């Protein structure tokens, strides 16, 4: 027995690792740059110039905090052409593009030189200031109108160059690169104030040529394994770094893209409602379905049994979102019956957070009736069917026949001998409560606008708040496994017939 429990727990651990890996893979493949998302959500005000200047440093800090300057995993299987320093490139779209270039060219040195030369060129071209150029190049201009026109002209050119160079970092198509280079070339040739950029540009162009002439495509065919050690994103995500990041195993799931709040505190705020709701409805479902299951098993193949079976079957096929919406349509609609409030769990004009527990509860009851019905009916149909099948199985067992043979009353046989054993399969279902608190109620909470975990998941999906989504994924996987573990152990404890040798 103890041996079984230990063995069971030991299989639990690799599963958890596997779940964490899947979650991590999903999180790093989520589209978009997390740093961009976080800086955008912070929403600092000010002119565009100030923002880009201030946020560059800010971005670097966030990047460091998120660990994005680290390699992704302990090891990386790639090919000879990829350098082990690729992860140091910060901008995500640049990194993807450099990878692509590396894949095409195969010569990492040339690719990185090329990339660096573009960056240098970009930095220099950003230093151009229209006013200074104007004073230097055309000191004799006095008329205001001419001045404005020239200034506009120069600004336009600078912007154009900036745009072309910027997009150069994100293109790997050969003809697109050439197109952009030609455009910049034509600017440099025609505008005299751009001559000092010429040397840098020539260098870029030469390296562009090298990309083709010094390509070592064969290198991309040879796989290599790179070892990074524990300083990687996965390790940081899972275990933290002992300073500002605590890691998933200590309950630190990162920060939300929407409001930069810690995910764990957000979940903590919301989970109570969902958990309460699922506990109430599961208990209700058990209360109704166990008697129904027993009764229809006891009266097996009678007319009542067949009718209840059919009704349960139909209920079982009814999608919860349909039932919820119909309930809303029928009972929370001024056009039909306005018995219940439409949405939420409390009336913000009356509700007072200082109230005691029971006052709060009685205030919330009308809000909760429809959701609980929606929540309950599906699991109720499911549980009744399981209960009935289990009971039928038990009633045909030898020990029940023995109990009858020794003259026990039918009631006693069913309620004392059969019931206890038929409850066993239902234990397994109880394990489903844990994950349900986290995710099972997405649809119901969305229909009734209940501010619990389900609605939180729903909004975070709409807003593409990936840290939240991944956290929910990890937690619900973990909790389901925990549920199965507990159910298995309970099973072993309760049912002496099962031996786990």
């Amino acid at each position, binding site marked *: 027995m103890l041996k079984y429990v230990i063995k069971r727990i030991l299989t639990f651990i690799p599963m958890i690792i596997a779940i964490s890996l899947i979650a991590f893979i999903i999180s790093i493949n989520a589209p978009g740059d997390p740093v961009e998302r976080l800086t955008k959500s912070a929403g600092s005000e000010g002119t565009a110039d100030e923002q880009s200047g201030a946020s560059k440093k800010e971005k670097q800090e966030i990047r460091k905090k998120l660990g994005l300057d680290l390699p992704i995993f302990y090891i990386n299987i790639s090919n000879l052409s990829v350098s082990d320093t690729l992860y140091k490139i910060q901008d995500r779209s640049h990194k993807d593009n450099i990878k692509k270039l590396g894949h095409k060219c195969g010569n990492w040195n040339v690719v990185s030189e090329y990339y660096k030369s573009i960056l240098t060129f970009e930095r220099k071209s950003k230093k151009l200031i229209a006013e200074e150029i104007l004073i230097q190049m055309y000191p004799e201009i006095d008329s205001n109108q001419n001045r404005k026109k020239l200034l506009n002209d120069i600004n336009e050119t600078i912007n154009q160059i900036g745009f072309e160079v910027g997009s150069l970092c994100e293109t790997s198509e050969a003809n697109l690169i050439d197109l952009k280079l030609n455009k910049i070339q034509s600017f440099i040739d025609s505008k005299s104030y751009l001559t000092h950029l010429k040397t840098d540009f020539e260098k870029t162009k030469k390296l562009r040529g090298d990309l083709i002439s010094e390509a070592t495509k064969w290198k991309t065919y040879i796989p290599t394994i790179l070892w990074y050690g524990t300083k990687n994103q996965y390790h940081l995500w899972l275990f933290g770094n002992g300073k500002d990041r605590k890691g998933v195993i200590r309950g630190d799931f990162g920060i939300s893209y929407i409001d930069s709040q810690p995910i764990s505190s957000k979940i903590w705020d919301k989970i109570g409602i969902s958990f309460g709701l699922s506990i109430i409805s599961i208990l209700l479902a058990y209360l109704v379905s166990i008697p129904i299951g027993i009764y229809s098993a006891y009266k097996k193949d009678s007319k009542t049994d067949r009718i209840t079976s059919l009704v349960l079957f139909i209920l079982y096929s009814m999608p919860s979102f349909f039932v919820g*919406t119909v309930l809303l349509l029928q009972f929370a609609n001024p056009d039909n019956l306005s018995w219940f409030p439409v949405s939420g769990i409390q009336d913000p004009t009356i509700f007072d957070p200082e109230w005691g527990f029971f006052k709060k509860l009685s205030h919330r009851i009308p809000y909760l009736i429809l959701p609980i019905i929606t929540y309950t009916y599906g699991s109720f149909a499911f549980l009744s069917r399981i209960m009935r099948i289990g009971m039928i199985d038990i009633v045909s067992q030898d020990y029940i026949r023995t109990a009858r043979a020794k003259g026990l009353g039918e009631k006693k046989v069913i309620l004392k001998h059969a019931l206890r054993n038929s409850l066993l399969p239902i234990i397994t279902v109880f394990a489903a409560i844990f994950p349900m608190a986290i995710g099972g109620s997405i649809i119901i909470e969305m229909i009734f606008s209940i501010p619990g975990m389900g609605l939180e998941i729903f909004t975070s999906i709409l807003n593409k708040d990936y840290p939240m989504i991944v956290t*929910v994924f990890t937690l619900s996987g973990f909790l389901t496994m925990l549920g199965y573990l507990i159910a298995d152990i309970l099973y072993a404890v309760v049912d002496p017939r099962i031996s786990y040798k």
Partner: protein
Amino acid sequence: MDKTNENFSFKKYAWNQFKKNKIALISLYLLLFLVIIALFAPYIANDRPLYCEYEGNTMYPAFADETRKDSIFDENGEFIQILQYDITDWRQLNLSKVIWAPIPYSPNSMDRYNRDYAAPGGKQRYKSPGGEILDIPNRFRHKLGTDGIGRDLASGLIHGTKISLMVGLVSMGIAALIGIILGALAGFFGDNKLKMTRIKYYFTIIGVVLGIFYGFGFRKYEISNGFNDGFASGMWEILISFVLFLIIIILLRLISRIFGISSFNKEIFVPIDTFVSRGIELLNSIPRLILIITISAVVEPSIWIVMVIIGVTGWTRIARFTRAEFLRIRSLEYVQAAQSLGFSSIRTIFKHALPNALAPVFVSIAFGIASAILIESGLSFLGIGVPDDIVTWGNLLNLGRQNLEAWWLILYPGLAIFFTITIYNMIAEASRDALDPKLKS
């Protein structure tokens, strides 16, 4: 009745058992009806006429390609106009003879005069070919009402049928393929029947790694470019990658034969059952809806991707049943006979054992289709994963939720989903009872 053993076939017996269940039989006919609706959806609900005569030209617009363009000349050969089939408002043309589709609206065509949730029995407006706004003639009435932007609900339901059935079929097709193969291998070989020489075993593992490297890692840009071009070409690239993957594994296994050192040639067991069982356990321990939602939040919205995700996450049940069947079958005489005759394992599995293991698999596929349809409509109800411009039952229902006054948008799509799921569940349950009387409850 005088039935000898020779005439007795299990299929016949199962079908007779199935036929006894009247509700299931009706469900089967209803399913057939749904399939017909889905197949003929473009001719049942279309805003282009099935047949019409315009200025002496006979046309069959509903059967033509959507993007077709026709130059119209009158009887004297004089040019009148260019008709582009998909943007022409056929109702506004002076058609001398016309047969409309039973529902004269396409699922995405917006009726400007019946915007803002026109009720089925309520007032609906219509612009006649003469240009005046009238009460709608019965022929053009939106029999089941419209949504907020004037799309016809009945048409949406008809076309939604196609998507629902397709979701069930495609996703469970994928799930069945994965589930049957993995379940059969796990059940047939178990942990201690698949023997390999040690060198071959290690080379296979290396082959898997290299296969992933060359097949998928090396071709990742081709695959992503393929998906940018469209779903079909993306899947094609994946198929190429997969074939490459297999070729590399086979190649390495062939190479391993060169090594003749005796210590390498000791035979070891491949614990294939453990691999598959752990995989099933892992996938089962992630709540399916959460898994699907998480993945579809990361990828681009597309109905095909939703189908693939549902399929890839839904094979565990099928694999479990197949595995259990194979565990039973592998010790039966005829399988042992096949093996002692020297047939290869692959042949024994797929030719001899599999046909006899399919009964419970069929049942779980039927249940799986029901839950696939449920999941897809749940996803499109939430607006996750399924693009907005595809009309499905789920997102029609969601439109109703947003505007409770439009009860028809709640009732009809909801009933459609409910009936389809019930039909599949009924068929599944009846066939379970028919195929395996032991399981009957």
